[in-house]
């Protein structure tokens, strides 16, 4: 009896093998994501994946669903337009830390503030992988990058805290070591109404791990295993990432807020009455 690889039906097989380095964590997150789609029961033709630029930005090109490979940092604006024009689509933004929080940081905070009904998955490899390992807003203090050869002196973003304070209704963080939990978090995020955010800490063995003397992907995964502390419901103020010390993982926020679409419909229905025309379903 032969059983197909569960990830296969979601991949554009003609584009395999992919460009990611040996041991890169992005493939692992895609495995979990496709299994989460399977379990959530969302049909493939009602799902859209939007990516920006970067290593993680390639995910949209490899997924065999409706996908959008957009300009750098602008994955969320494209996804916003898609969601407003086709409200019954499940829109997932799948991108990296540099794309979502440096180039596209402004869009992230406003999408979270508006509580747009979309899921954002951020594969955080703590560096710009595709362009040569430069410093990102999430690179921990003291870490060496190609643009900080003596180490980083800037304080990085704490992504779960940023997402929560801007208004996201679901915030979780896992590493690529926690595959089962990551799959569950992605499934919950897909089924959550409103702006859901999943951060996945992922190894970049070629640029981040090698430069910071962590070793290859396997060594980086072992450090996740030893450094991770699971604290569901932890205060997001206290989940900062450093070069050493614990990596706090878990589901931090799960709450309810009125979404952008619901607020808009309620407001205009009240103001305009039957002159208000809803977006087509």
């Amino acid at each position, binding site marked *: 009896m032969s059983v197909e*690889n569960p*990830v296969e039906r979601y991949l554009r097989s003609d584009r395999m093998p992919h460009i*990611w380095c040996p*041991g890169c964590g992005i493939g*692992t997150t895609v495995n979990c994501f496709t299994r989460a789609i399977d379990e959530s029961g969302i049909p493939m033709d009602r799902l859209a994946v939007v990516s920006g630029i970067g290593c993680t930005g390639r995910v949209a090109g490899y997924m065999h669903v409706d996908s959008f490979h957009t300009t750098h940092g602008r994955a969320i604006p494209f996804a916003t337009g898609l969601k407003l024009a086709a409200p019954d689509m499940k829109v997932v933004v799948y991108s990296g830390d540099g794309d979502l929080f440096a180039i596209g940081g402004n869009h992230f905070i406003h999408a979270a503030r508006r509580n747009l009904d979309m899921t954002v998955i951020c594969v955080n490899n703590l560096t710009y992988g595709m362009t040569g390992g430069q410093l990102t807003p999430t690179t921990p203090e003291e870490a060496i990058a190609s643009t900080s050869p003596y180490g980083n002196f800037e304080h990085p973003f704490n992504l779960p805290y940023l997402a929560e304070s801007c208004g996201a209704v679901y915030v979780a963080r896992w590493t690529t070591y926690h*595959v089962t939990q990551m799959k569950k978090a992605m499934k919950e995020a897909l089924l959550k109404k409103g702006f859901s955010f999943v951060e996945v800490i992922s190894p970049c063995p070629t640029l981040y791990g090698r430069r910071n003397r962590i070793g290859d992907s*396997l060594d980086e*995964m072992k450090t996740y295993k030893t450094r991770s502390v699971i604290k569901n419901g932890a205060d997001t103020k206290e989940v900062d990432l450093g070069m050493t010390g614990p990596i706090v993982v878990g589901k931090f926020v799960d709450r309810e807020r009125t979404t952008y679409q619901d607020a808009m419909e309620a407001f205009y229905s009240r103001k305009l009455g039957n002159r208000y025309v809803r977006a087509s379903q």
Partner: protein
Amino acid sequence: MVIDAERCKGCALCVEFCPTDVLALSSSFTAKGYHPPEIVRPEACSGCDLCGMYCPDFAIYGYRL
């Protein structure tokens, strides 16, 4: 368990994290020069698919009959 050796890039995550130690890195080479995993203890495989979840190259997966 099924291995597609030509997709494998030899990162050994499946070998390390297999809960029942079914796999080992083979001494053979793929066309690209990587060492793929091989099944050394087939009877121990529980079909948990953890290797399939970890594999960054979609080259291995487990299933239960």
